[in-house]
């Protein structure tokens, strides 16, 4: 038991908590909780009115159960009752319950709001605080609507107690954050600013938070806060540590308030008023000076609080970015922290320096710490600190130190944590390109990247190296030589094979003079990797081979043999097969001249500045997230044919267009790899896919709207639950107090798909949830269902897809069996699925002549079924039409000489056969009767359909 058990000491609660703690297993715990829930429920439902204490105790127990992670779906009313209690603890527990378990039940919200209103008006500061806390804790829009104008009034009223002012300020802040539109600006804003001058530091602290948030959105309205904040800050930093009494924290004067004031100042540019600016600079200098003083305490709290203020001051200095001396001093201070024994400080120093590196005043100063940072990369034991070191190295990189930094990053990459590898790869790739003086270094770097961390090299990275090599004559020979050497390794990454294949295909001739890299050697080298590669890479290699045929006529025969082999020509992959066939053919029929034109070297990519770089340079505005699509498009957009080739369409493009899916633009790089799964092409196909699925869902939506109209008719007129789904495909299949089952179905020919939606109507989980379908005769009807998640959360919905295949005509519907555990009891539900024979109808339009001809053909007595029955629903012509269409047949107008009669035709699709069906419905409005006649080629079908349809009218 706790050392202190204050006040009420709810014994029952303590016993219950002990019991729970003693539970040996999860099951035992759940059992104990269910017992308690049953007990509380009966107490709440009992005839005897509960006294306040018991109510409080039970509400508190419910809260405890909820906090253990169980769902609570009652007790809200009792908690609301507690709010109006005069006893503080009862009220307090009531408010706590409401704050933790808000229920959007509107009646309840009204009651809660009433209680809050009363407490706000009570003039009892403790009650007012409870009410304000509750508003802030819930913070919902309803709360804001009810109290957004009341809270500011309390905040600035002259007679409000300090503690209430604090709560009101933060409560208003919370409301403003969640619903800024509901908080009216007004006279109170000016008075709020003056709270910065308040005697009570607690009030100032709370008010500063509020003002900072308001000032971000309305900087002009709160401009006057700058001078007040500077004045306040100046008084704090120049005070002796004991001056502020209780607001001194481990010998640091009001650290929280200082941090907040410094944050507030970051909403504004440096003050224009010289005196004010001077005073602020003085404050910042004092803070920097204090960092150099010996600590007043050895406690970590002292240094944390002191440094929290220091880091915030540095943030402000960086934000202003106008005082070179301050920036350099900040940098030196951080430099000291880089070697501090506290891991936390090293982490923060690395992080803070990143931003300093971007200021022109301190960039050079940051660079002096390069050795320390590199050392951190090698020796820090915590990956999050190493990550910061990588960030800082990236930020401090420029032409002067790029080689060193890239080399260090590469060597770190060998052992880097998997979680940050990709990021490092990108950073290295960018730095290598950005600061490359000679491109041999660039090529080496990227190949090293692939060698060390091939899996983490994204497509963009190797595209880029190819773009650069193609554009720079001076590096092509070197690149060919280097990739050739790199490919010698017995195991090399597939990305290297891609780069190698591409570059040797283009520039292999530049190294072919050396007998060690003769054409045949090059080809054999590439081809030795072929069988280990994925399809996209193999496709690329095939393109490289055809390019070889042009570059090196002497290996033509060898390559043709390869292309001709069964493993190529009869490859299971269509793309590979097609490439092999076409390349082989091309190499056979085309003359050398044509080959040379068709397989000419790739033209250079146009140099242009990337829009992303422009974005980076502008670097204005928070939340400036990159437009991924944009950047991707740019990668490919770069690849338009350059000017010298304009006018004549590029032959290579044409060639590849022959055997590739239509490309998205004239981008060559993409064309070459149009069927490799580049991110670009994946992107495109994904886009297409989603566009496609949008269309599909649009069509579905339209369709379901149509079906909806039908179902409105039906629900109006057809009460028979069993037959409700004969003429419609969507709707609620089943519902009880726990579960709702909804359906959406689509049929096409003999196949159907049903989307079953299971909605948990309770707030508790369903466990072991499973559902299966049993078909009475699987030889006639196949139902395949995909498994669903065994847990169905309270209030949640899951979807299950059933695929249905009609093998031959069938009579009985399949049954959907659902099983789950709710609150300890196993629930079993079985419902018939509305899969009837008529679902597999395909409507058939036909002329009057055709109809009667077929009608006669189906004249055998067993083929016709007729039924005369009484109308169960009002005989509305439109409704009847809708039902017949919903049934699945085409409604044929003008066939029957009597325009009151309905005639329809359709074909039932099953896997084994198709059954044609004609029907005629003759209403007799006077007698309120119908006569339904059906003729199909199969007697069982006629009977079944007649039964189904006759129930509908």
């Amino acid at each position, binding site marked *: 038991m706790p050392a202190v058990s204050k006040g009420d000491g709810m014994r029952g609660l303590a016993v219950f908590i002990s019991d729970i703690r003693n539970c040996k297993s999860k099951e035992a715990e759940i059992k104990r909780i269910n017992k308690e829930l049953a007990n509380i429920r009966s107490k709440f439902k009992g005839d005897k009115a509960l006294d306040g204490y018991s109510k409080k105790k039970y509400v508190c127990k419910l809260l405890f159960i909820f906090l253990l992670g169980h769902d609570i779906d009652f007790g809200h009313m009792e908690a609301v009752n507690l709010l109006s209690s005069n006893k503080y603890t009862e009220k307090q527990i009531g408010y706590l319950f409401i704050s933790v378990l808000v229920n959007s039940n509107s009646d309840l919200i009204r009651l809660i709001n009433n209680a809050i209103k009363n407490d706000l008006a009570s003039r009892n500061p403790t009650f007012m605080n409870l009410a304000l806390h509750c508003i802030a804790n819930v913070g919902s829009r309803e709360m804001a609507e009810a109290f957004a104008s009341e809270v500011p009034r309390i905040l600035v009223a002259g007679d409000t107690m300090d503690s209430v002012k604090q709560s009101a300020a933060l409560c208003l802040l919370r409301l403003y954050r969640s619903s800024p539109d509901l908080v009216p600006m007004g006279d109170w804003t000016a008075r709020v600013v003056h709270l910065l001058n308040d005697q009570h530091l607690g009030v100032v602290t*709370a008010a500063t938070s509020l003002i900072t948030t308001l000032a971000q959105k309305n900087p002009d309205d709160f401009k006057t806060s700058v001078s007040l904040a500077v004045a306040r800050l100046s008084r704090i930093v120049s005070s002796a540590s004991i001056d502020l009494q209780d607001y001194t924290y481990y010998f640091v004067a009001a650290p929280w308030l200082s941090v907040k004031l410094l944050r507030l100042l970051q909403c504004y540019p440096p003050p224009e008023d010289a005196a004010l600016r001077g005073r602020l600079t003085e404050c910042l200098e004092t803070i920097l000076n204090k960092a150099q003083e010996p600590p007043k305490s050895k406690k970590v709290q002292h240094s944390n609080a002191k440094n929290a203020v220091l880091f915030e001051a540095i943030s402000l200095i960086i934000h202003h970015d106008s005082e070179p001396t301050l920036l350099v001093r900040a940098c030196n201070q951080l430099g000291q922290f880089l070697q501090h024994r506290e891991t936390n400080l090293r982490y923060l120093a690395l992080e803070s320096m990143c931003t300093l590196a971007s200021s022109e005043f301190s960039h050079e100063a940051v660079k002096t710490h390069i050795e320390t940072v590199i050392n951190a990369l090698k020796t820090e034991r915590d990956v999050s600190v190493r990550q910061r070191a990588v960030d800082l190295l990236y930020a401090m990189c420029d032409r002067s130190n790029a080689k060193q930094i890239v080399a260090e990053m590469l060597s770190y990459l060998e052992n880097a944590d998997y979680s940050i590898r990709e990021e490092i790869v990108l950073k290295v790739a960018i730095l290598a390109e950005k600061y490359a003086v000679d491109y041999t270094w660039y090529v080496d770097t990227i190949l090293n990247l692939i060698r060390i961390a091939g899996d983490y090299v994204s497509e963009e990275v190797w595209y880029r190296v190819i773009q650069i090599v193609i554009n720079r004559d001076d590096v092509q020979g070197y690149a060919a030589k280097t990739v050739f050497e790199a490919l010698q390794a017995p195991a090399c990454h597939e990305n290297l094979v891609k780069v190698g294949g591409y570059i040797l295909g283009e520039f292999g001739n530049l190294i072919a003079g050396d007998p060690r890299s003769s054409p045949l050697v090059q080809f054999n080298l590439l081809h030795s990797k072929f069988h280990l590669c994925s399809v996209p890479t193999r496709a690329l290699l095939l393109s490289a081979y055809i390019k070889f045929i042009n570059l090196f006529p002497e290996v033509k025969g060898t390559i043709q043999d390869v292309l001709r082999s069964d493993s190529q020509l009869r490859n299971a992959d269509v793309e590979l097969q097609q490439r092999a066939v076409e390349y082989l053919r091309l190499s056979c029929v085309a003359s050398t001249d044509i080959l040379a034109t068709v397989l000419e070297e790739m033209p250079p990519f146009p*140099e242009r500045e990337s829009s992303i770089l422009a974005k980076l340079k502008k670097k204005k505005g928070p939340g400036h997230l990159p437009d991924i699509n944009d950047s991707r498009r740019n990668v490919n957009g770069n690849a338009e044919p350059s000017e010298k080739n304009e006018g004549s369409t590029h032959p290579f493009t044409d060639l590849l267009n022959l055997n590739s899916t239509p490309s998205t633009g004239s981008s060559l790089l993409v064309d070459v790899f149009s069927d490799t799964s580049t991110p670009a092409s994946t992107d495109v196909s994904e886009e297409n896919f989603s566009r496609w699925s949008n269309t599909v869902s649009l069509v579905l939506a339209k369709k379901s709207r149509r079906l909806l109209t039908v179902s409105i008719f039906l629900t109006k007129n057809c009460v028979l639950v069993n037959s409700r789904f004969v003429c419609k495909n969507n709707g609620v299949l089943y519902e009880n107090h726990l579960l709702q089952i909804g359906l959406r179905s689509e049929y096409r020919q003999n196949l159907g798909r049903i989307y079953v939606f299971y909605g948990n109507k309770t707030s508790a989980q369903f466990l072991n949830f499973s559902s299966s379908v049993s078909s009475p005769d699987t030889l006639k009807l196949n139902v395949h269902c995909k498994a669903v998640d065994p847990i169905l959360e309270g209030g949640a919905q899951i979807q299950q897809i059933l695929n249905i295949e009609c093998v031959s005509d069938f009579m009985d519907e399949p049954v959907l069996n659902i099983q789950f555990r709710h609150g300890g009891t196993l629930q079993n539900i079985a419902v018939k699925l509305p899969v009837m024979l008529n679902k597999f109808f395909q409507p058939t339009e036909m002329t009057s002549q055709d109809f009667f001809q077929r009608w006669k053909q189906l004249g055998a007595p067993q083929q016709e079924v007729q039924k005369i029955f009484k109308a169960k629903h009002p005989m509305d012509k439109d409704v009847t039409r809708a039902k017949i269409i919903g049934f699945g047949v085409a409604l044929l107008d003008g066939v029957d000489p009597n325009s009151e009669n309905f005639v329809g035709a359709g074909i039932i699709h099953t896997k084994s056969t198709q059954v044609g069906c004609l029907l005629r419905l003759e209403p007799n409005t006077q007698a309120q009767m119908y006569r339904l006649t059906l003729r199909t080629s199969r007697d069982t079908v006629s009977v079944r359909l007649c039964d189904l349809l006759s129930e509908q009218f």
Partner: protein
Amino acid sequence: MSNQTSTRSLSCCITQVLLQLESQTDGWTPTFLMRFMLLFSRQGKLRLQKWYTATAERDKKKMVRELMQIVLARKPKMCSFLEWRDLKIVYKRYASLYFCCAIEEQDNELITLEVIHRFVELLDKYFGSVCELDIIFNFEKAYFILDEFLMGGEIQDTSKKSVLKAIEQADLLQEEDESPRSVLEEMGLA
């Protein structure tokens, strides 16, 4: 950066990572908003949770599970901060309990550490050398103390005295017939 004037194209391989980096330099959102605070034991039992922004129950459970796993796996000498999703996690261990706060990218980590420490001090003062059991058996008190200290994710009063005074007043407001508490007097604002 002073030499960012390179005009060569840099079209490849830019990811969010970099823009995030970049935005650190200019995307100032000077707020001090705590998103949530969690207290959990070394065994991974959640003892207290306080959410300062609207979060769906299901997400809460998922986040708690994920975070506990990450934090509990960390070694003692590691730093108290880590990046998680788009948040920064500041945590500290006191005896068997982990105190864990989620703050925003730009927030002040060190002051958050001291928010945790001040909260621990308040619990300590109130319960008299607090232990995990105190928080288990008096969870409602722990919530009240936290509410007095932090409101809507913002610090309400940093003075230990003010906060404790508020809590004590509340305790004194309880049933009058309760006997006076010696412990109360003990800490009694002396």
